[in-house]
C-alpha cells in the first residue's frame, strides 16, 4: 500500500492549481460584502461579518503578486483557514476538490530552490488523475514575511 500525504484542498488562482492542507480549512463561503480598512496592504481586503463573527479577508491573488480581477460571484469563494489562533478568509478564483496525493507524486522544494518571491510554495504535486500540476502552498510561510508580523509570535498546532 502506498503511503499517503495528508488530505489537501485544491483551489485555483489565475488558472493555476494550488493546494493547502485540509486540516487548516474551516469552511468555504460565498463572497460576502467586505468592509475595507484604511491604510493596510492592498491584499488585506478588509473585514466580513460571518454569522456575527468578524473575519479578516485576504485577496490571495494580490498576496501572490498576481493581477487583481473583479471577483466573479459565481466562482470566487472565500476559504476560511485557521493559522494558529488566527482565522483568515482567503479569496480564491474557485474552490475545487479535496485530494490526497501519494508521497511519490509530491516533489518538495528544498530551501535552495525557492526564490524569496515564491515564498509559501513548498512543493509541487503531480495530479495524475486530472493530468495537472498542483502547487503546494504553506500559508504560514506566505504570511511570515509580510506586514502580518503578528504571525511570527503565534504558534501553529
Amino acid at each position, binding site marked *: 500500500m502506498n503511503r499517503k500525504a495528508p488530505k489537501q484542498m485544491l483551489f485555483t488562482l489565475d488558472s493555476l492549481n494550488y493546494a493547502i492542507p485540509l486540516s487548516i480549512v474551516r469552511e468555504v463561503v*460565498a463572497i460576502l*460584502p467586505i468592509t475595507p480598512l484604511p491604510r493596510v496592504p492592498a491584499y488585506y481586503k478588509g473585514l466580513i461579518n460571518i454569522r456575527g463573527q*468578524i473575519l479578516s479577508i485576504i485577496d490571495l491573488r494580490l498576496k501572490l503578486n498576481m493581477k487583481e480581477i473583479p471577483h466573479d460571484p459565481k466562482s470566487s469563494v472565500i476559504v476560511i483557514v485557521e493559522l494558529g489562533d488566527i482565522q483568515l478568509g482567503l479569496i480564491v478564483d474557485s474552490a475545487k476538490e479535496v485530494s490526497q496525493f501519494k508521497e511519490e507524486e509530491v516533489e518538495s522544494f528544498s530551501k535552495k530552490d525557492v526564490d524569496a518571491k515564491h515564498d509559501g510554495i513548498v512543493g509541487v504535486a503531480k495530479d495524475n488523475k486530472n493530468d495537472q500540476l498542483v502547487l503546494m502552498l504553506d500559508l504560514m510561510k506566505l504570511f511570515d514575511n509580510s506586514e502580518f508580523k503578528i504571525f511570527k509570535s503565534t504558534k501553529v498546532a
Partner: protein
Amino acid sequence: MNTSQQPPSSDNNFIDFTSEKPHQSDSSESNTNHAEPSMPFDTGARELGAPEFSLGQQPQVASAQSIASEPLAQSAGAPQAAGANSKAKTEESIRINLSKIEEIQNIFGEQIILQSALEHYLAQDPIDMHQSEKILSQLRKLSVSLQNLIISLRMVPVSSVLGRLSRAVRDVATSTDKLVEIKLEGGDNEIDKNILEQLIDPLVHMVRNSVDHGIEMPEERKQKNKSPSGTVKISARRLGSNFEIKISDDGKGLSKERILEKAHSSGIVQRGFVPETKDIFKLIFASGFSTKASTTEFSGRGVGMDVVQQQVKSLKGTIDIDSVDGSGSTFTIKIPLSLAIFNGTVVKIGEDKYVIPNTDYRETISLDANKNRRSSDQKGTIVEFNKELMRLVDLRDRLGNKFTKKPDMRNIALVVEHENQKFACIVSDILYQEQIVLKEMGPETKLVKEATGGTILGDGKVALIIDLLKIIASKGIAA
C-alpha cells in the same frame, strides 16, 4: 414548545443545532469512509417531503451560503470540529437564572417557526408579500427581545459582591477593635459580570481603607459626639448608561494638611505650591504617594489608591473624592454599565462607515469656510468656532479610502478635547446613532492602529470603532 405543522423530527433538529460540531464531524467521517453522496448539512426535513418547512437546514448554512458542492461539503465537517478543539478558550462560567434560558429557548423556537413560515410564503408563486412582510416584522421584534435577553445574561446583581465587601469591612473592624456598621444599598442593580469582577479588588481595597483609616476608635468617636459605632455605606445605582458605586464613611475624613505635607515631602507636589481642595484629595491617587510609613502613622488613604484609580480608568470609569474634615469621606466610582455595548455615532468618512463612541466627543459642529476663520501654524490648521480656537483634524485624510480632497466650504466636525486643547475632527457625514455591540477581532486587525474594535451595523456589514484621542495623540495628523 413548537406547535403545529412540524415534521416529527423537529425536536431532533433542535438538538442537532446545539450539538452541531460533534454531529458534523461524525457525518463527514461516515461520508469519507463510505463515499456516500449525502451532504452533512442536508438533514432529515427535506427527505420527509416538506421542503417548505426545511427545519433541518441549519441556520448557519442559510446565512452564510456555504458552498455545498460535494467534495467541499465533505471536507467542511472535520476541520470545523478540529477548530473547535484547538480553540479552547479560558473557561469561565456564569450563573444564569433558568427562566432566562427557557425564555431564550422559547424565542428561538418561535423564530424557527417564523422562519419556516417565511420560507413557505416566499416559495409561493406569486410571492405573498403581505404575509412575508408581516412575518419579517415579527422576526424583528423577536430579535430585539433576544438581544436584550442575551445582554442581560452578562449582567449580575451588584449584591453578589456586596457580601464580600461587608466581610472585608468586618474583618478589618475586628482586627482594629473598631465598631463598624455596614449599610448596603441598591444591591439589586445589575452590571456586566466582567466589569464587576474587575471592580472587586479596588472596592475591597477602598472599604478596608475606610475602616482602617477613616473610622475612629470608639472612644475617639464618643469624644467627638459621634455614636461609638462608625458606618460604612456602600450604595450602587444606575445612572443612564453608567453605573455609580459610592463608598462613604462617617469617619474623620481626609486631612488636607497631612496629604499636602506628604505630597510635599515625597516630591509629588513642589514645596510652596498649594493646589485647590479637590485637587489635594486627588493627590492620593498619585503613584508613589503611598508608602509603608503612611499606613501606620498617617491617616490618609494612601494605600495603593493609584492602583485603584488605574483599574477604574481601564474600565473607562472615573473616581471622585469628597471629604469633610471630621465628618467623613465619600468615594464615587462611575463606570459604564457594559463595555460590550455602548452608544455610538455612525459617521461616514470617505465612502466608509465608522463608529465613534458617544463618550469620546463633546459636540458636533458645522464649520463654514466663510464664517469660521482659519489660520495655520507649523503644526497645521487652526479654526475659530464660537470664539474658541480648535485644531483641525481631517479624518478623511487618515481613514478615507480613495478620498480625493477638494476644497469644501462646509465641514461637519466632532469636537474632542485633549490636554486642554480642542480638536475639530472633520468627517464626511454624521449618519445616525445606535447601540453598538463590540465584537472580538483577530490580532491581525491591530494593523489598523486607529481602531479600538469592530462592530456589525444594522445592515450586516462590519464597521470599525475608531479612537479619536489616539488619532489626535499620534503625530502628523493635523490637516
